[in-house]
């Protein structure tokens, strides 16, 4: 089957043909000009075009193994069944993607794989949410109710997304250098342990930094009372760190190459490293950072086509296949669906379907502090 590509890839290929000499300069410039003209003329009217027959839906996600799992198990079969193409793009983080959506025309971006209820709330507060017709998504019945309810609470009982998977940001460590016993003893404080100076890393995400600072200072991450102490912990971690990582690929590379011995990490990525044979341990400390991801439909999107795709993605066989590919447990309720053999072995998996063991970020609390803390972290990160 032909792989669908976004415009960037298309232009890159065109440029490559030109550079290879397969295309003369006049044709190359003509095609670029025509594409620019078509885009400029078409884009403002894209929202009206969405009312017509939908031939394509755009999806944006985290790339890597996550995108590969979705492409193979969800998008290609969906296109085969419905004739609707799914064009997938990637982003490195929710903040970066939000900037792109903010700069886009309505209807340009359709479905996003968002992380955390706080992101859902941010998109909603910026007027980017929609109202899904749940009758068109019958597979929503298989989803863990707790995961659905937290989204409903943000959008007045309605939904602009469907929950899709969940995971944790726990502690990942190289067993050659750090024993399981040491991890159990030190927990989150190992990230500010002088003994590992220069072999520590962390995600350059202000929420994660503050969450772990709360754990290191013995505070409730959803109600940090001594904020100054938390910032001191962030500074201590910074001073002992080799590097802040910015993507899942970089996280995996730093651990696999043994540049670092300990960091916090995304459960699915660490599982992938373990599957590759690296002796990397993973531990969720008490009150470790739990999160749930959703498939969010952005304002201006062709709703019925998006709902059809979401329903297809939530079908147990699709959802389980994607989960096994990306190593994050699906949002499906294990009390309603048989999840097979692999998923119960994934980190963060909750066999009860109640998710009581995971602590999720309170969206109101974290979004309320977002403006101040993201800015402060920008400074602390650079040595202030």
């Amino acid at each position, binding site marked *: 089957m032909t792989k669908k590509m976004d415009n960037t890839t298309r232009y890159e290929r065109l440029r490559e043909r030109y550079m290879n000499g397969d295309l003369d300069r006049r044709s190359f410039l003509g095609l670029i000009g025509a594409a620019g003209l078509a885009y400029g003329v078409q884009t403002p009217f894209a929202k009206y075009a969405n009312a017509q027959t939908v031939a394509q839906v755009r999806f944006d996600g985290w790339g890597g193994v996550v995108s590969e799992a979705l492409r193979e198990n969800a998008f290609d079969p969906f296109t085969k069944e419905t004739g609707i193409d799914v064009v997938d793009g990637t982003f490195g983080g929710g*903040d970066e993607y939000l*900037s792109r959506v*903010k700069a886009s025309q309505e209807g340009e971006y359709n479905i996003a794989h968002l992380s955390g209820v706080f992101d859902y709330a941010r998109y909603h507060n*910026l007027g980017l949410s929609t109202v899904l017709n749940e009758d068109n998504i019958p597979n929503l019945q298989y989803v863990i109710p707790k995961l659905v309810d937290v989204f409903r609470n943000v959008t007045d009982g309605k939904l602009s997304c469907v929950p899709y998977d969940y995971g944790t940001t726990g502690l990942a460590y190289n067993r050659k250098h750090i024993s399981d016993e040491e991890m159990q003893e030190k927990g989150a404080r190992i990230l500010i342990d002088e003994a590992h100076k220069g072999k520590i890393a962390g995600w350059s995400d202000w929420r994660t930094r503050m969450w772990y600072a709360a754990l290191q200072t013995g505070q409730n991450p959803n109600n940090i009372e001594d904020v100054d102490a938390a910032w001191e912990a962030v500074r201590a971690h*910074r001073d002992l760190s*080799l590097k802040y990582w910015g993507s899942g690929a970089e996280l995996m590379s730093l651990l696999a*190459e043994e*540049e670092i011995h300990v960091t916090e990490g995304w459960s699915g990525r660490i599982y992938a490293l373990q599957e590759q044979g690296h002796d990397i341990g993973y531990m969720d400390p008490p009150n470790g950072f739990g999160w749930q991801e959703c498939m969010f439909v952005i304002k201006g999107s062709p709703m019925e086509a998006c709902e059809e795709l979401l329903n297809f993605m939530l079908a147990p066989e699709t959802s389980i296949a994607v989960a096994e590919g990306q190593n994050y447990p699906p949002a499906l309720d294990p009390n309603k669906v048989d999840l097979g053999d692999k998923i119960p072995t994934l980190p963060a998996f909750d066999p009860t379907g109640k998710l009581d063991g995971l602590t999720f970020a309170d969206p109101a609390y974290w979004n309320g502090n977002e403006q101040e803390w993201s800015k402060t972290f920008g400074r602390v*990160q650079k040595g202030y």
Partner: protein
Amino acid sequence: MSVEAREARQPWILLSPALTAVALLLFVPLLFIVVYSFWLRTATGADEVGFFLDNWQEALTDAFYRDILLNTLKIAAITTLVCALMGYPAAYFIARSKGNKAILLLLLMLPFWISYIIRTMSWINILGVSGALNTALLSVGVIDEPIQMLYNETTVILGLVHFLLPFMVLNVFVSLDGIDTNLEDAANSLGATRWQAFTNVTLPLSLPGLAAGGLLCFVLGAGTYITPLVLGGPTDAMFANLVFEAIITQLNWPLGSALSLMLLVVLGALVLIYNRYLGMAQLMKGLG
């Protein structure tokens, strides 16, 4: 219309596509950025339209931005100096080589065929704990444990030199290539040693090229964003990283606009000073 009037209009007609492109793709977006810099970011991340001086006040009075800007200029200056010291002998060698000049120039251009990001990331495989250099040193017994060489200011400068050195070499080469070698011979025939001929004749005549290369290296180095991100440690951010964070991480486009204009003004001032004393012609020669 008279012939004179038609002839006077002709250059403008010929230039109009380029001028339109520059206006639409450079000045109009720049104008948007100027307008944006006076807006405000609200708590939800949405922008409040209006005329507010808050972003400019913050950008100009906050010591944080001043310090990072000074550090950025320092890194760019060191990079430029290293490029000049490494680039001049290379350019001299190419300019004075006979027969294989074209091949040497082609070799100089080769790195441009590989993505800048890939070139930057290649240092991880060279200097990393399990990289080529550590592996070689371990295998010959020079060290017992891998040395931590990555993720500091030195590796940022190294990455920048790797990126910018060809720009310096090309500019100096263009300048040296235009110097008549008979001048050095004349100096020698008048009793000057080869070193004296170089320092009194060749070097002064090649200074415009060195200055053009220096300007390019400095401006490109000061505006870089990828290198400190890939090769820098936690505290090795440069000013462009602040712009990125304001716009992408904090969704504060107005502040990001003010910061990017601030960098533009500082680097623009340097270009103006260069133009005042050396003119842009040499730079164009180097770029051409």
